[in-house]
């Protein structure tokens, strides 16, 4: 075996080890998060004992652990992973490091749907308790479908999608602003609180449905990772020479990432930073190979989300700082540090 191959295998082992360690840290962090909360009835040890079946739980303790903390932490793991993978797909297929799952109008579509439900009381579903969620999900997909259609009409380049996305985002934003202008202060307040992004809203059943959707979509992303490699390494011409159809790949990736993002933010509200930063942080560990980058981003996204949410609900307990705000507060400086620490580096 030549020295280049040996070095490649060695690098691969190191990368695998680092991702494994990150995964183990995320699991332990999640367990730690399960033991953290405002309830004086449940300290860390009691929680662990109850989870392990070593201690009988009261009904209240059981409710807190399995109906409040567990769905929230599972949502953090699944939501973080989904948004991070969606971010890496977007960045890969559009060849732009600044895009995130929310760039292509998913956020503005979701906000538009939420505004229709909150301000106008218009819902795509007849069930009022799911009106905001259903509207946010459907509207975000509609907006992305329009963007993909218009982007395809203009040309098949990545820039077309981004430019059309920006235009549609502005239009959706204007409609939301108009509704806000005519909204009552109570409706305005609800819309603002919805947009903060929080993991507490979905219940266990909803989180399980979200998990199933994300886990079904994730292997599809892995399946297309080689096509993404071809696109990101040499652009459209290189991709064509390797038998990859750039237009089709781009469209499929956008639809997939839009689905993954919509299914999460419809329930959580807008959580933006993780989809932008987690893929970049993963690149610093794993490089640009999407076969490794996608799973690594998923783990990094889950880690970031669990960490931010746990900090947000324990730092000033019982006050909860919404996870979207917390992610930006702690993630922003950390992201900058990583980028500066690796400037001129091999990655």
């Amino acid at each position: 075996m030549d020295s280049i191959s040996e070095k490649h295998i060695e690098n691969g082992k190191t990368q695998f080890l680092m991702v494994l360690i990150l995964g183990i840290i995320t699991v332990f962090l999640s367990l730690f998060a399960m033991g953290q909360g405002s309830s004086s009835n449940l300290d860390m040890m009691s929680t662990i004992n109850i989870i392990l079946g070593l201690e009988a739980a009261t009904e209240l303790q059981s409710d807190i652990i399995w109906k409040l903390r567990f769905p929230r932490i599972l949502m953090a793991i699944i939501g973080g992973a989904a948004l991070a993978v969606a971010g890496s797909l977007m960045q890969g297929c559009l060849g732009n490091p600044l895009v995130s799952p929310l760039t292509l109008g998913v956020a503005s579509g979701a906000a538009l749907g939420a505004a229709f439900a909150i301000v106008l009381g218009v819902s795509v579903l007849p069930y009022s308790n799911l009106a905001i969620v259903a509207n946010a999900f459907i509207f975000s997909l509609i907006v992305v479908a329009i963007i993909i259609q218009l982007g395809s009409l203009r040309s098949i380049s990545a820039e077309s999608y981004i430019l059309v996305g920006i235009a549609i985002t502005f239009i959706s934003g204007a409609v939301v602003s108009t509704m806000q202008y005519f909204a009552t202060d109570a409706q305005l307040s609800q819309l603002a609180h919805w947009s903060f992004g929080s993991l507490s809203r979905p219940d266990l059943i909803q989180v399980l449905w979200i998990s199933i959707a994300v886990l079904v979509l994730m292997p599809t992303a892995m399946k297309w990772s080689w096509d993404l490699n071809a696109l990101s390494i040499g652009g459209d011409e290189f991709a064509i020479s390797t038998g990859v159809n750039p237009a089709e790949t781009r469209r499929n990736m956008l639809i997939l990432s839009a689905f993954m993002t919509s299914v999460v933010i419809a329930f959580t509200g807008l959580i933006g930073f993780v989809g932008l930063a987690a893929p970049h942080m993963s690149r610093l560990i794993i490089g640009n190979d999407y076969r490794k980058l996608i799973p690594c981003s998923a783990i990094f996204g889950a880690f970031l989300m669990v960490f931010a949410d746990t900090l947000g609900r324990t730092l000033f307990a019982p006050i909860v700082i919404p996870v979207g705000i917390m992610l930006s507060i702690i993630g922003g400086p950390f992201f900058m540090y990583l980028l500066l620490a690796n400037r001129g580096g091999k990655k």
Partner: protein
Amino acid sequence: MDLIPMNISKLAVFQAALILFCSFGVYQYSVQEENDADGGAIIIIDSNGVEHSFVESPTRVAITNTYAATVIRMLDVESDVIVGVSGDFYDSSLWPEFIDTPIIQQSAHSEIDFEALLDARPEVYIVFATNGMVDTNAIREKLEPVGIRVLALDFYKYDNLRYEINVIAKLFSKEKEANDLFVEFDEIESLVEDRIGGISETSRPRVVMEHHASLTRDPVVLTGTSQWTDMIEKAGGKNIFADLPGHTTHVDMEAILDGNPDVLMFDGITFDIGFNAFDEGNDCQTHMNFIAERPGFDEVKAVQSDSMMIMSGEFAGPMMIHGLPTLAKLLHPSLFEDIDTEYYLDNYFIKYHDIDRVGKFVCEFERV
């Protein structure tokens, strides 16, 4: 060749002299304006701490919120002084005198239609002082240069209500009416205080009051600086989250479970309750059922004893003192068993709004 530098230096001296002269002129003008402003017979300080001086009571006033209009009614100020209102006065049964009054903005919180406002030619514009959705300073900076005084008053804070009523009373020379009103306030407060005075601190019902934004996210509770905290205290209760900073804040659901409140209250701004509103869609019960079904809430005392209620927005306005017996009776039913607390609400509408009270003002939880 030497002439040019000499001319430049003369020019510089001339420019400096001109600047000094103009500055002196501007200074003189501003001093004169201040003197003119200070020369009024009526001096009031609004809730932003801004002093206003008036030679006589204003005859043209623009108001944007119904609280200010209510206080103007309570003090028996002539309604024709109001020359501009907002769209909040849409209910012609409650505000018949403003049907033809020009609309100067869509609601109390929306942007001012400056041309409509200037057309109304008000001397005074009354605006919320501390409402987070109104930028009072920006409004002041915009309106005062065109000669419109911006008077910042809230009328929704318990500890400031009397002060703010006094400001309006002084502005319109209605001090006697204000004193009569305060006597009435004192009587109502005494009635409540006499009944709850004997309750020890530890026996007071512990209350959590949730903000309407709780409908979309984690529970948002009313905290330390909320007017509701003061009202709950006055009615003989104790807001569990009174020590948290700010007006409202997101709290962990576990914190409510841990606090195990005796009473769960909800700010009812988003519900179809209050004057002339009857919650015909039964949204109040739907909401309280949703709250009761939150994980772990079946063990909360308030849910077990069906002590959940949604309060209409009027309770947090100038009606707050007339609403105090109602709130106290909800917290201490046995102490106020013999008191017809509805009387105070009816009286408020008949006496100050000259209309019978109609509508649903409190929604209490009814277990199915």
